[in-house]
């Protein structure tokens, strides 16, 4: 392992009948949280599945925890915790039985920690998963992913469809996980506000292409929202305009701070607005 990146994706391509991932480059630095943002169908889940080798790439390289092939090296999978958009556990099992299966699957399984998480999430040990609510199922998946001392967490739309309280709980858990500097997270979601809370880097995917990859703080530093007239907007260098919305009452745009003309007030951006403007701009 190079010691700096938990995941490195270079020139990743995958073609389907009606969709393709094109020349994707993505890095998850060790100790960081990278949020993969994109609209439905942007290629977030496909990218994660390619990283996890659940499907085969057409070209490019993927390195996870320093290894090129997870399939051939089980030690990599020992160190990864995965949470999908739904609980993929057999529905007729109980959390206790899931724990037993995991204990016999992961060498570093920590049963005490698992029980602690179940207790913290108020999940009953002996109730079958089928009777759990969606939030409870997702918490169980997260408890399982966190209980084998994983260095890397990969979450694919793990917060989608959950109520704000449960989502907030999950974000808190993830923030706890990243207190250890060796721990990294790749998290995909189209709920940008969740990612905004926890991520160090934001990667925007649109129609299978990575349209932006930037440190979150750098986005705040570099860009502002402006409100102006259409004419004032036209006067700004087009390259500095990330996205715009023109309405009856004027224009709203996200622009590089250094390109804002004097006399126009710049306001702090939020990632969700940036995302929406970028998607609209990209068409």
């Amino acid at each position: 392992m190079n010691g700096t990146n938990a995941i490195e994706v270079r020139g990743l391509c995958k073609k389907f009948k009606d969709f393709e991932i094109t020349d994707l480059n993505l890095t998850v630095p060790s100790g960081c949280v990278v949020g993969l943002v994109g609209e439905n169908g942007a290629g977030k889940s496909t990218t994660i599945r390619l990283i996890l080798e659940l499907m085969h790439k057409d070209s490019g390289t993927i390195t996870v925890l320093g290894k090129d092939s997870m399939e051939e090296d089980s030690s990599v999978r020992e160190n990864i915790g995965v949470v999908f958009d739904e609980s993929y556990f057999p529905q007729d099992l109980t959390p206790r039985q899931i724990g037993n299966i995991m204990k016999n699957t992961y060498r570093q399984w920590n049963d005490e920690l698992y029980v602690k998480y179940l207790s913290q999430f108020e999940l009953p040990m002996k109730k079958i998963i089928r009777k759990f609510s969606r939030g409870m199922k997702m918490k169980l998946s997260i408890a399982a992913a966190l209980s084998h001392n994983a260095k890397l967490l990969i979450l694919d739309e793990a917060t989608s469809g959950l109520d704000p309280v449960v989502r907030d709980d999950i974000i808190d858990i993830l923030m706890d996980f990243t207190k250890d500097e060796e721990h990294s997270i790749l998290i995909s979601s189209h709920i940008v506000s969740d990612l905004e809370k926890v991520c160090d880097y934001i990667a925007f995917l649109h129609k299978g292409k990575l349209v932006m990859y930037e440190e979150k703080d750098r986005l705040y530093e570099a860009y502002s929202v402006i409100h102006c007239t259409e004419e004032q907007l036209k006067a700004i260098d087009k390259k500095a305009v990330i996205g715009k919305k023109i309405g009856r009452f004027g224009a709203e745009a996200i622009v590089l701070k250094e390109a804002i003309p004097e006399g126009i007030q710049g306001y702090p951006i939020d990632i969700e607005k940036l995302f929406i403007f970028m998607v609209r701009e990209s068409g």
Partner: protein
Amino acid sequence: MKGLLLRAWYAATKPLTLLVLLLFGIEAAVPSFTVDPNESEWFECIIFGTMTTLIGSSVSVALLGEDEMVRWHIFSATTPAARHTYVSCHYLVTVITAAVFTLLSSLASLVLLLKTTGFDGKQYLLALAVISGIVMVVLSLLLPAVFRFGAKTGLVVFIVLFIAVVALCAVLTVMSSQNGEWMQWLENTDKGFLALGIFACAGTIFAVSWLLSIAGYKRRSL
């Protein structure tokens, strides 16, 4: 592997699954108590045993179907249990269930032998070989299709193979009742040797099927 086997065990010991398995177990052993010693029903016992064993042994295929339904197979591919381990686990479950059901089914042959000609080890071995041979060959053809293309395709293949086995059994029944050349050849052949031959062929086909399934499953997008 232990984790995956434990998951299979939990699935197999679910009350409903246990009930179904118990029913097939009883059904497989029923001829043991109903055979008429005055009639040669040995072939019928084998055919009946083969059908019940085949259905009972396909529990691993049902397990694969359930895995796909809840997408446990996707989750397992992200754990240290690699894809080849997942395939091997299901083959092991298949062997275990096939062995249990074959033994239950062959009880019928055993009882018939005891009631008529007395215990003939070679003939009993032949009954075991025929039942397990047919079942193993059918599952050997079925499992690579399930692993490569998924449980839905597997179900279609299973139905086709089941019909083929029914047809084969019908042909065997007709042949046995006609007492023709084929039956005479069977009478004159060393049954122990024949049983070993069937075991060896079925075992080889099963091993090739296992390797094919691993190769197919590794190529599959989950």
